[in-house]
């Protein structure tokens, strides 16, 4: 670039403040108590966690009265193992992510799998949430990927669900 060329930098930075909705506040409080809450749609009975405050399929609002507690444990219904490469460094380690279907629901939550060697991960494993610790009652701002307030999933050590049981769960997830 010639010395005669002058460059004008005009960096724009905008700050926003979006207060959490009532549903989000209650979800965060529950996470602080290591509880998982969801909203159940009064029309189709779908569960949403974290609760949205509405069901986008039926187009109805949901409120505290539709709040239910769901188990923070479930069955690993799918997973993938990522080996470090240029795109997936992950601290240079082989790591696994999985989809856990919460007990008694058809909600799957995705997250890092913790406390198990990648080579030993298999569908049907029983998993439980590894909670994010709140800082002064708030979720830390760098929550990473995955469900809000849940760092990842670790094995409970209980016996696996059978192949048939996992297939039933997956079928349930696909029902509309």
């Amino acid at each position, binding site marked *: 670039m010639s010395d005669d060329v002058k460059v*004008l930098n*005009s960096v*724009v930075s*905008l*700050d*926003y*403040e*979006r*207060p959490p*909705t*009532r549903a989000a506040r209650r979800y965060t409080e529950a996470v602080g108590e290591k509880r998982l809450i969801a909203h159940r749609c009064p029309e189709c009975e779908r569960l949403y966690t974290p609760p*949205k*405050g*509405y069901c*986008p*399929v*039926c*187009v*109805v*609002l949901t409120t505290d009265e539709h709040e239910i507690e769901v188990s923070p444990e479930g069955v690993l219904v799918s997973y993938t193992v990522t080996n470090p490469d240029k795109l997936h460094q992950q601290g240079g380690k082989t790591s696994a992510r999985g989809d856990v279907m919460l007990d008694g629901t058809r909600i799957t939550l995705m997250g890092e799998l913790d406390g198990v060697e990648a080579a030993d991960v298999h569908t049907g494993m029983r998993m439980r949430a590894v909670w994010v610790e709140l800082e002064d009652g708030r979720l830390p701002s760098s929550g990473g990927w995955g469900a809000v307030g849940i760092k990842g999933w670790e094995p409970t050590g209980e016996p696996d669900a059978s192949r048939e049981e996992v297939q039933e769960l997956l079928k349930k997830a696909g029902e509309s």
Partner: protein
Amino acid sequence: MRDVAIVAFAQSPLVRRQTDFDEPQMIMPVVREAYEQSGLDRSQIDFVCSGSADYLAGQPFAFIRGLDAVGAWPPLSESHVEMDGAWALYEAWMMLQIGHADTALVYGFGKASAGNMREVLTVELDPYYLAPTGIDCISTAGLQARALLDNSDYTERDMAEVAARSRRSAMSNDHAQVKKDVTAEEILAEPYWVDPLRPSDCPPITDGAAAVVLVAGDRARDLCERPAWIRGIDNRIETHYFGTRDLSKSPSTEVAGKTVGSGDGIEVAEISSTFSHQELILKDALGLQDSTEINPSGGPLAANPLMAVGLIRIGEAFNQIKNNGKQRVLAHATSGHCLQQNLVCVLEGD
């Protein structure tokens, strides 16, 4: 041309900050109310169009979340404009005109409270020459007000009269945010904020949403006792360089107004005069007669939910026909700084 009418209009409470609800929660009851008024359910709506701006939410693709409020399952025919909902109504009206749809839902929404509007609205300026100057929306309005005062017989008292009347009119509007029994003298006693604007010459910051249902043909009469027929709708834009415009006038409003017959027998006009002086500019540009009642709802000076405020003008005009027995009314929406782009719509009763 097909006959197209508005058969339903609903709006949310218009408030300084909606804390408990996010955008879909704010929109959903409004859409539901509009459907109930129209007697149509969502399976009977052929086309959905929305207006919003992701810069208000501060989140990329924030407008997609608006779809949660109308239901995108089963799949629907949908479009969006990054503009006020009034322009979404324009697109929906065209879809009905070309026969691709017989019914349409239009909605607009914004939570201006999330960001600092004096910074956010600077980003909508020309990014090379104007935005880097950092000039904010109150200052550009100040430039326009000064240009008007210096190039016309209007005075600061005329501006104060507009500001006072708007807040007094809003007292009978359940949805309005700023309503006050105030006089022009009291407003003139306020110190300048951005000279020559006083705080009361400027709009509030508002969160809100609105929805309208459009129907083509005779079916509108079955769904609404007094539908409001869209007899003319036009929008025109001017250059984005302030320096090449006479800010004391609004030629784009004038052209759009002439196209739809704004100077002829308008009983009520709901116009997007975001700042008090803009009502004076718009009234002249539209050629409104003195007998025309302007902004009985209080207008944007009483509640200014960005991206819904123009659609609300159309909805309030519809209410004048539906509820108040008016026959010929006008609505105006604006976009950009200093009335850069303007949409004018004339509605008539049967």
